[in-house]
């Protein structure tokens, strides 16, 4: 007999697929955390699972009950004896409830091993197989730990004491989608197990049944327009939990990347906090209970691109979309930088740049997304770079303006990217002004970009770089203008530089 333990819909899908593919003839039991569904939905969800009979026995794990029995809350200052007391209480509560001998299972597969079952297995030195929390999450250990800590500090302390979530030495194999891990990831225990590949190649006959279970019936989305799949996230796992900021961020990214596409929104299973019908009128919203891995099997039509702020699930959709855009967690911690980067990419596109762009001092992933979206390729070799984009995050006034035909200086740091000794003879100041309309969540903002044009090829096209555009979802008017930097403008920029430097080093 085999045992599976899950806490999220993704993990449930993974378990179903794994069980049907690799433990088809084995008797099986499934343990799910109560929180996998809200209270009103729990009973019907359990009945539905039982009806589909993927597993022989299914139970909810009453973690809320165990919480009351832990005895105390833990934090970083807790003593070892307190931690051990809580672990003992926790394990006793689980054992009393579970009522079976875990050693009788031939294989145990556990996702989210920071909960009762995982703690019990680790404490009692029972070997188990680990399933990654979400697609690509095995290589994001720090981020995962941060999420656990935010959700439940006590469980995080316990998990750390026992070796770390997903790191205990009782783990035999770590099942994951190897293609979606971070570049350079290596774990000797990692075993490749992709949901998409397994469904497509190992158990294709089971796909309709699994789709029906998750509530889809070959949902068809047909459109003449290109389709963009937008993947949302659980607010609880985000660095910045400001709900208004997250809404603004989403609308800006959609306005930047795919304003004219049909937007196909796949909410995270726990994402109940944004009203996508209101935010993106005219979009098609998939059921949040449908795991994103099933989308290619449930949607007719070509999905041109996928977009997310920082969901690792995007790695799982790479197989069935033409392009994917992932903006990293820096999009939440420094969202204003995205505005400058977008404008920079737009300007280069309007100047007719197509390739040969070098990046420096900037978030490469984000800038590359904007460049790729307007059809500009990054440089392949350093000798033929026409364009340099410098982010100015760390101030570096040693820019050789003669080395490139176009140099774009963004001010992404605390201090404006400008210097007293810059030669302004070929320099232009680009102003990007964001003017909010009614009910917009954005405030009035202005971004300054310094553009140095060495080549006469581009100067005549500078007028094209000036434009006005309505960002319809963000309800903002973006106006971009350019002016030659003369002595007057230079003085203004130097004043601004002095003020910024003063703030950086403020003291009496």
């Amino acid at each position, binding site marked *: 007999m085999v045992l599976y333990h899950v806490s999220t819909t993704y993990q449930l899908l993974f378990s179903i697929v794994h069980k049907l593919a690799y433990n088809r003839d084995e008797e099986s039991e499934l343990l799910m955390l109560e929180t996998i569904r*809200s*209270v*009103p939905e729990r009973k019907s969800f359990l009945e539905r699972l039982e009806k589909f009979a993927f597993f022989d026995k299914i139970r909810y794990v*009453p973690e*809320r*009950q165990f*919480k*009351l*029995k*832990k*005895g*105390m*809350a833990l934090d970083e200052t807790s003593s070892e004896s307190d931690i051990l007391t809580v672990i003992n209480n926790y394990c006793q*509560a689980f054992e009393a409830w579970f009522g079976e001998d875990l050693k009788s299972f031939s294989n145990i597969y556990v996702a989210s091993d920071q909960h009762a079952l995982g703690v019990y297995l680790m404490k009692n030195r029972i070997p188990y197989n680990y399933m990654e929390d979400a697609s690509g999450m095995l290589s994001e250990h720090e981020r995962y730990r941060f999420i656990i800590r935010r959700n*439940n*500090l*006590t469980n995080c302390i316990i998990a750390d004491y026992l070796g770390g979530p997903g790191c205990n030495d009782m783990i035999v194999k770590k099942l994951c989608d190897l293609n979606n891990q971070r570049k350079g990831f290596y774990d000797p225990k990692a075993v490749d197990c992709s949901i998409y590949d397994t469904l497509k190649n190992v158990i294709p006959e089971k796909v309709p049944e699994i789709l029906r279970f998750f509530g889809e019936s070959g949902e068809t989305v047909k459109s003449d327009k290109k389709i963009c799949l937008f993947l949302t996230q659980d*607010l609880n796992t985000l660095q910045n*939990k*400001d*709900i*208004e900021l997250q809404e603004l961020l989403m609308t800006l990214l959609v306005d930047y990347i795919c304003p004219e596409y049909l937007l196909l929104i796949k909410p995270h299973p726990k994402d*109940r*906090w*944004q*009203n*996508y*019908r*209101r935010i993106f009128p005219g979009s098609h919203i998939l059921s949040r209970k449908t795991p994103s891995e099933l989308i290619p099997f449930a949607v007719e039509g070509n999905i041109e691109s996928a977009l997310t702020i920082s969901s690792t699930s995007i790695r799982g959709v790479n197989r069935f979309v033409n392009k994917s855009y992932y903006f990293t967690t820096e999009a939440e911690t420094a969202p204003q930088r995205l505005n400058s980067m977008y404008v920079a990419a737009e300007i280069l596109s309007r100047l007719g740049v197509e390739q040969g762009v070098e990046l420096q001092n900037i978030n490469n992933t984000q800038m590359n997304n904007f460049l790729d979206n307007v059809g500009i390729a990054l440089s392949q070799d350093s000798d033929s770079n026409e364009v340099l984009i410098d982010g100015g995050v760390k101030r570096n006034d040693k820019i050789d303006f003669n080395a490139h035909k176009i140099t774009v200086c963004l001010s992404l740091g605390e201090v404006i990217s400008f210097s007293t000794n810059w030669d302004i003879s070929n320099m232009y100041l680009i102003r990007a002004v964001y003017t909010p309309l009614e*009910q917009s969540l954005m405030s009035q903002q202005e971004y300054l970009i310094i553009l140095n044009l060495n080549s006469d090829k581009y100067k005549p096209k500078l007028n094209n770089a000036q434009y006005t555009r309505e960002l319809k979802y963000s309800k903002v008017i973006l106006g971009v203008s350019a002016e030659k930097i003369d002595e007057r403008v230079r003085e203004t920029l130097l004043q601004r530089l002095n003020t910024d430097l*003063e*703030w*950086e080093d*403020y*003291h*009496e």
Partner: protein
Amino acid sequence: MIEKVSADFVGQLYLILTTGNEDINFLCNCLRNQNHEAATNNPMNFALKLLKINIASRLPIIKNRLFCEEIGKSYLCQKYLRPAVWDLASGVLDNSHIVTDIFSSAFVLMKSREDIFALVERQTNANGFAKLRLKFDNDKRPLEHIYNQINQRLGTRVDYHLELELIKKFSIKNRYVTRLLDIACANDVEITAFVRSSYPRCFIEKMIKDCGIYVNKLIISNEDAYSSLAKHYESTAVLSSDYSYIKKFMKRGCIAVYYRPSRLMLQKVKHPKLDKKFREIYDCVCGTRLFEGMRSYSRVYELAYLCIAPAVFGYAQCLAKTNGNVAALDHSRKGGLLLSLVYDKICEHEAFPKDKPSADTVELKAYLGSENRVTEIIEKLITCGGPATCKLVDKRSNSKIPPKRLKEVFKAVMDFTADFCKYFCLSSEPNLIKGSDALALLLQGQENISKYIGN
């Protein structure tokens, strides 16, 4: 013993302990919001605290001790902590239906209804109007009928649309409550707005729509077809700032979601002695900013907003009113820069008359000194929070404040400036902050300003 208790029983017990009256409900929720984990991992301790609140709230003699917080001395934003809106919504979404009264929850009225009536009286020169309007106020009668009755009595022709315009003008969207309703809507929770008001349906519908709220059903008490409340409301949450409204629905089985009005939260806090009129405005404006619930504020921000900002704003007002020497402000110093930024903001507002000097505005200026010393003084306020005496000014402070903290102070002062200017713009009455009030607030917070902002 607690191990034998089921989670459902604990939930029931929590409900009983937290819904006695509005103070109990509010304070218990604040306690829970301050530390979620402690409530579930140390339930005995938590239950004792709830019990203490219950007992204290019901005994008039010690009730006041529950609200012993003081401006500038207590960290109010931490004490009176609302849950994150999505956290509150998670409790609401377990229900299929939500009932709300909209007006006292989704909107914040920046003036009291009595003040609105007084404004109508002033604008129409209908003497006695305000008193009669209050007397005839009845949410089961349409506004038009009420006005007809008043006009008959006074022999006037006051149009009720004026009151509607004023209500609209002085109502600000409560972003927390509207976001909560938006989340409910996104999850297909049916929203019924049950409004006890004499205002017409078209007016209420427009207010709701302009706010971006969607309701499935709107019931208004003044309509002929107004249906009485249903006997039972299964799987229903009730949301309001009016606890008596909530109580009515709780008796029918609803789950209570009490949103305590932000201005009320500050009203209950101990203030230094302030001018009555200024205090009303201060509580309303500051309460809305700090306790709305969409953002949480640090201690530095709160101190700067409540205690430092009135002094800086008051001084800048004084400069504006008395044509002070703005050029003398040293813009290279942080104090001078801050003061000039506030001054510019004040002067932007058309509602601020520049030609009318006033005696009480110079009080603060006299205390703080002339413009060329005020930059140092304001820096002193920021670093030490001490009373700006000549002695202090002569000693140049060697303290270094991290830029991040100083930026928070700047932000708080600029936010205060924007909020007060907006309020004054609405009311068209450029109420000036008296020097004595600003100083009282500053002195109230001086110890903590020194501790948390200065070094």
